[in-house]
């Protein structure tokens, strides 16, 4: 037997499951795990709310005008993200970086709006352990879920700024295409989660 035979048996070079990019598969698996985290939080929120007798009406307490604008902003930042990838695919590194900056800026404004919203609500009496409108768990779940999402956006902005550096350091646009596409997966996921959070925590 040759020495190479066991390797071929253990690790075949290509199977129908072999992804185009291992990094992309890695990010998808990470996002699936993260989605279970968010799914658990939202399911628990639903369970708590369905069985509470005095759950406040979210959209009259929280106010949805600012949040609707924040939702729109996050959707816009997803568009600038795909535009960045599109320009990188066409070989225009500068335009790609510009759109990545726009995306990071969108995320930064989103987090700033959230900080403003939190301070406003805390001022009105919404605390993590109680509020003037009803069930104490309303505040607990609100701060936990929106805070967890806000941390993801903050992480995403840092991730984007790091990737802008990567694109800048690699002269060949094709060399950073995969890295930017993977960053995009994370960013769109954060947008997708917000779509769910906005619906379940603000509108329902």
């Amino acid at each position, binding site marked *: 037997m040759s020495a190479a035979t066991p390797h071929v048996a253990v690790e075949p070079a290509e199977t*129908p*499951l072999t*992804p*185009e*990019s291992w990094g*992309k*598969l890695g990010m*998808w*698996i990470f*996002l*699936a*795990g993260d*989605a*279970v985290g968010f*799914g*658990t939080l*939202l*399911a*628990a929120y*639903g*369970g*708590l709310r*369905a*069985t509470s*007798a005095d759950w406040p009406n979210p*959209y009259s307490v929280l106010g*949805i005008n600012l949040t*609707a604008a924040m*939702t*729109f902003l996050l*959707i*816009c930042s*997803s*568009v600038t*993200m*795909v*535009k960045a*990838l*599109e320009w990188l*695919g066409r070989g225009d590194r500068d335009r790609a970086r510009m759109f990545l900056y726009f995306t990071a800026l969108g995320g930064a404004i989103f987090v700033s709006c959230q900080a403003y919203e939190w301070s406003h609500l805390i001022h009105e009496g919404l605390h993590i352990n109680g509020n003037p409108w009803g069930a104490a768990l309303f505040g607990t779940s609100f701060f936990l879920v929106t805070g967890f999402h806000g941390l993801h956006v903050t992480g995403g902005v840092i991730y984007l700024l790091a990737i802008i550096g990567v694109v800048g350091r690699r002269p060949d646009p*094709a060399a950073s*295409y*995969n890295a930017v*596409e993977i960053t*995009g*997966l994370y960013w*769109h*996921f954060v*947008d*997708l989660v917000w*779509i*769910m959070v*906005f*619906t*379940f925590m603000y*509108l*329902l």
Partner: protein
Amino acid sequence: MAETAHKHPSYMAIFWYLAILTVIELAVIYLPLPKFTIGVLLCALALGKAALVAMYFMHLRFETRTLGWVAITPLAIATLLVFVLLPDGFAVLKTTEDAKKPAAAAPAKH
């Protein structure tokens, strides 16, 4: 190159779909409909928006089926979790309601 292998969808079209669905969501909560119907409509709209983001922005539509299975698993787990929580939740609700009842019913019995 990967980007030339599959054609890009029209991202602006997806953006407008998402924007319009968001406006519909905001309108739905003021409709004179039963709360349950509004809830079902909002869930459907949210899932539609999430699907648009995953399929087109995250390119899931153009990926292998394996990634699709990876992506759908968390949704299945979260949905199952809701059913796992329900019996406990209703038990809590019943206990709360039962605790209220005797106080109101007691005077009538005697």
